[in-house]
């Protein structure tokens, strides 16, 4: 098991800057997810850790030792590719054994480990087959097996589930989680799917255009996003953002939303946001309809209604600003109706209008 440390890693491909001063520490035994949209640099970062790419500047430390210039094969890491990268001319057993064969592990040891891994992943009957005879899920398991068989000090996974259909993805997701917890191996997992990130990661690192936006537990990233981008990227449907103007009045405050004035609820246990313009963020499920308590009442009109089975999504218009609210499936509100919203003060965040950084709550 090892800790992985990226120190101000920058990567440029010609004129394109894929990573900018990325500094990140992956703790021993944790599963850290690198999350971000396509092109944000997450795969590049992973490949730099693996040694498949060299950073333009900055350093990589694995297990306390700097690994610049060390060949991928000597870093004691295992990589799981999005396309599985199974050797087509070898059987499943040979694929699993390959990392051991290259290192000249004894034949008995090799056979024992292959059997062990095959049993762990439930692919024992597939050992004699070739990759082209396997389904996507089976291939994925073999790819995982090949990574596990060496007992490396860290796993690097590059969107391993992206090529699977939705149901298989959910299944494999929990399997990977269970596996990682059972083996306790440090894992860096790259994905663009925020659901995967939230369910798998001990911690999540959000990247955008080569820059780290925030690192934290799924809860921290969800409830206290560091900026507008993280707020919109994590969580589905995304966080609502309302342009408001905060006016302090003596002990309290008034929040102006368009031509509406909402008094900050006294005694709610949370201090009001700082005065001035602000982008107020709240999640679709932290709004109440009809009555308080909470910050409100905010008048809005239902524009659209989406029935999801387990919930109803209402798309509202509040003085020209669009917000989405999640309601229980029995909700009756229809398009055209006016509603009154109450927001929970504890679940509110505020972003600077110009920079998008979270300024409230501070820290």
């Amino acid at each position: 098991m090892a800790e992985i440390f990226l120190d101000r890693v920058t990567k440029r491909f010609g004129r394109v800057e894929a990573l900018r001063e990325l500094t990140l520490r992956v703790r021993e035994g944790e599963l850290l997810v690198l999350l971000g949209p396509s092109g944000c640099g997450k795969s590049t970062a992973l490949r730099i850790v693996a040694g498949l790419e060299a950073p333009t500047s900055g350093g990589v430390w694995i297990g306390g030792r700097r690994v610049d210039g060390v060949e991928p094969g000597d870093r004691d890491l295992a990589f799981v590719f999005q396309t599985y990268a199974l050797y087509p001319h070898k059987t499943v057993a040979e694929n699993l054994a390959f990392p051991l064969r290259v290192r000249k592990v004894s034949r008995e040891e090799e056979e024992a480990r292959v059997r062990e891994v095959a049993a762990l992943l439930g692919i024992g009957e597939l050992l004699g087959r070739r990759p082209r005879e396997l389904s996507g899920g089976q291939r994925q398991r073999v790819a995982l097996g090949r990574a596990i068989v060496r007992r490396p000090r860290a796993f690097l996974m590059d969107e391993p589930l992206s090529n699977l259909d939705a149901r298989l993805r959910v299944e494999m997701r929990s399997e990977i989680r269970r596996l990682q917890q059972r083996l306790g191996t440090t894992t860096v997992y790259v994905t663009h799917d925020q659901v995967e990130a939230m369910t798998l990661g001990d911690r999540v690192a959000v990247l955008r255009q080569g820059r780290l936006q925030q690192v934290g537990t799924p809860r921290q990233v969800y409830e206290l996003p560091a900026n507008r981008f993280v707020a919109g990227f994590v969580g589905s449907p995304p966080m609502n953002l309302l342009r408001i103007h905060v006016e302090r009045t003596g002990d309290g405050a008034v929040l102006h939303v368009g031509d509406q004035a909402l008094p900050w609820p006294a005694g709610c246990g949370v201090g009001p946001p700082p005065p001035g313009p602000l982008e107020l963020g709240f999640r679709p499920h932290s709004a109440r309809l009809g009555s308080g308590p909470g910050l409100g009442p905010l008048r809005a009109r239902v524009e659209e209604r989406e029935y999801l089975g387990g919930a109803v999504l209402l798309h509202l218009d509040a003085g020209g600003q669009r917000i989405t609210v999640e309601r229980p499936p029995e909700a009756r509100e229809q398009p055209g109706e006016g509603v009154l919203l109450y927001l929970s003060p504890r679940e509110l965040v505020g972003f600077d209008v110009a920079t998008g950084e979270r300024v409230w709550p501070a820290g």
Partner: protein
Amino acid sequence: MRRPALGTAAVLALLTAAVALPFYWMALSSTKTFSELFALPPRLWPRYPTLVAYRDVLFTQGFLRYLANSLVVAGTTVALDLAIAAPGAYALARLRFRGRRWTSMVLGLIYLVPPILLVVPLFVLLTRLGLRDSLAGLVVAYLAQTLPVSLYMLANYFRALPPELEEAARVDGCSRAGVLVRVVLPLSAPALTGVGVYTFLIAWNEFLLAYILLDSPERFTLAKGLYHLFSSYHTAWDRVMAASVLMTAPVLALFLVFQRRLVAGLTAGGVKGA
């Protein structure tokens, strides 16, 4: 295969006949007696089939020796060509080194030079190296001709392989050479076969350099030996035909054996990694 329409079948039959007929006539003529060769009307089957021509060509005219020489030269050329071109092409395709693009370009430019222009410089060079009139010198000369093509073909093929396979092998602990030998080459059988056969053909059929470089009859290749059958002022056509059959048969056999792999090699480029 669907049954072709009658018109298509007729055209195909015609084309096949056009290609096969000269070969058939050649083989046929090699077994005819002298008098039958030029008989009119021409016979499609010998009245008195005989192997006299073969016996003479192989044992008196020295073609057994020439056959051996051609096999040695072509075989060695193929072996050395593949041994050099495989790692070389891999370097061009996957490794980053200074002057890589320049090297690729120069290799391509070599193509533009007609082989005949290279004959004199090669002759001078090989003479200075003491390799004139030697099979080794011929191999060197043939390699000079075939390596650019081999490097080009193999580099293109390697480039088309999914890079993740090689990356997986590197992470699994292979050195660059290990990746080449354990992963890339096993997946390149079609391309290697194509390059091998092509190189064999060039080395086997080449005449100009063999003619110029070889002096001693015991070192002649089939091509040069065949030529000398004409030099006499009375050409023994049945001998010429027999020698031609000897020269063509191995190539035909080669194609028959490797045919499937060859077609795959020509059309490949999209190997699905996993």
